[in-house]
């Protein structure tokens, strides 16, 4: 599922690397964090089921950037090894190779230089020995494939939220109320539980507003509700 031309977070990150015209093996990934966040913000919609993967890459970039700005910031014992810059780079290098291979395969396809096999037919023997269980298995396979959801059915249009739109909504709310609880912001329709997609978009919108210094975030205890507070204009 393409998101405004990007097939996932690695695709977007790779494009940023290529835009900078630098070597994937030497570029400082942390330097790409701002550009990455800006591009994600500019997308008019993110499918709910992919938001988390974009977010995961974004948070990793921000972490890498923070470490480079504050060398004293040692990785804590809790963070697992996969959070390192080297690991993200390795994934990116691997993905770049995949993209190159996909392009090469696509080129072959465009050339149309395919091969054809022969279905047979010269032999005029009356057909014999058909296997009914193979036939039934083929029918089952066709049914299974046909029963799979198709692209257009995967994400109902009503379930798509845009970060932009959600950010604007929260800005309006915060202009009216000095402080709001995160729990309140998660209520889209009173009495209904928010979907995961809506919660994630709301969360990204808040992170973005915080980054732009439009709000303050307070949390008194671990897993407690988060208070969103309007930031006094300087």
């Amino acid at each position: 599922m393409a998101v405004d031309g990007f097939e996932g977070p690695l695709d977007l990150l790779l494009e940023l690397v290529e835009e900078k015209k630098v070597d994937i093996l030497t570029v400082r990934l942390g330097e790409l964090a701002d550009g990455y966040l800006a591009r994600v913000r500019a997308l008019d919609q993110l499918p709910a089921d992919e938001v988390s993967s974009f977010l995961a890459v974004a948070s990793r970039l921000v972490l890498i950037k923070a470490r480079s700005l504050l060398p004293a910031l040692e990785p804590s014992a809790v963070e697992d090894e996969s959070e390192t810059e080297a690991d993200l780079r390795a994934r990116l290098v691997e993905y770049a190779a995949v993209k190159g291979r996909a392009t090469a395969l696509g080129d072959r396809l465009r050339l149309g230089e395919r091969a054809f096999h022969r279905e047979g037919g010269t032999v005029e023997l009356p057909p014999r020995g058909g296997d009914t269980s193979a036939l039934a298995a083929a029918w089952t396979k066709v049914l299974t494939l046909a029963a799979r959801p198709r692209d257009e059915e995967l994400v109902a249009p009503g379930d798509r939220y845009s970060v932009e739109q959600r950010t604007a909504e929260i800005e309006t709310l915060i202009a009216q109320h000095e402080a709001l609880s995160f729990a309140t912001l998660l209520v889209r329709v009173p009495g209904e539980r928010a979907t995961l997609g809506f919660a994630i978009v709301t969360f990204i919108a808040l992170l973005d507003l915080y980054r732009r210094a439009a709000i303050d975030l307070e949390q008194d205890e671990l897993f407690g509700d988060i208070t969103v507070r309007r930031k006094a204009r300087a």
Partner: protein
Amino acid sequence: MTPLARSVQAVLFVAEKPVSRGELVRITGATPRAVDAALGELEALCEDTGLRLAHDGQDWQIMTSPDAAAYVAAYLGADRVRLSPAALETLAVVAYRQPATRAEVEAIRGVNCDQTFYTLMQRRLIEERGRRDAPGRPILYGTTWEFLECFGLTSLDELPRVLTLPEPEMRA
């Protein structure tokens, strides 16, 4: 081998019936004389191989060489029906849904089924069964007597029952 002779060879290879000289001219865009030369080249090349270039008047076909007949028979005799997985799938759709139009089979399988329909018709496993009373009056297909014989069934009721998946909508 000239490029034209290569193309003629490839076309005759995939063809399941004799191809006329006129058709070869039309497909390759070469002159009739060039096509004749290519056929001559191909004929000479087949000598001493397991294949032969045969013709009946102006219709051409590649066949196996007679001295390989014993092995070909051994291969074909072992299990005479050797349908490709694609052909088997198309046959399954026709068998379980008959009568069905080609468009319906393609809608279910999600791919073009021209070649597999052709193969199954050739092998007399499916046949036309009139036309559907719908726009375009598409041809309906069903299985044949040979199909029952081939699969050792006495009637279509003997087709193995399969799962109870909801049958997909047909977008004909």
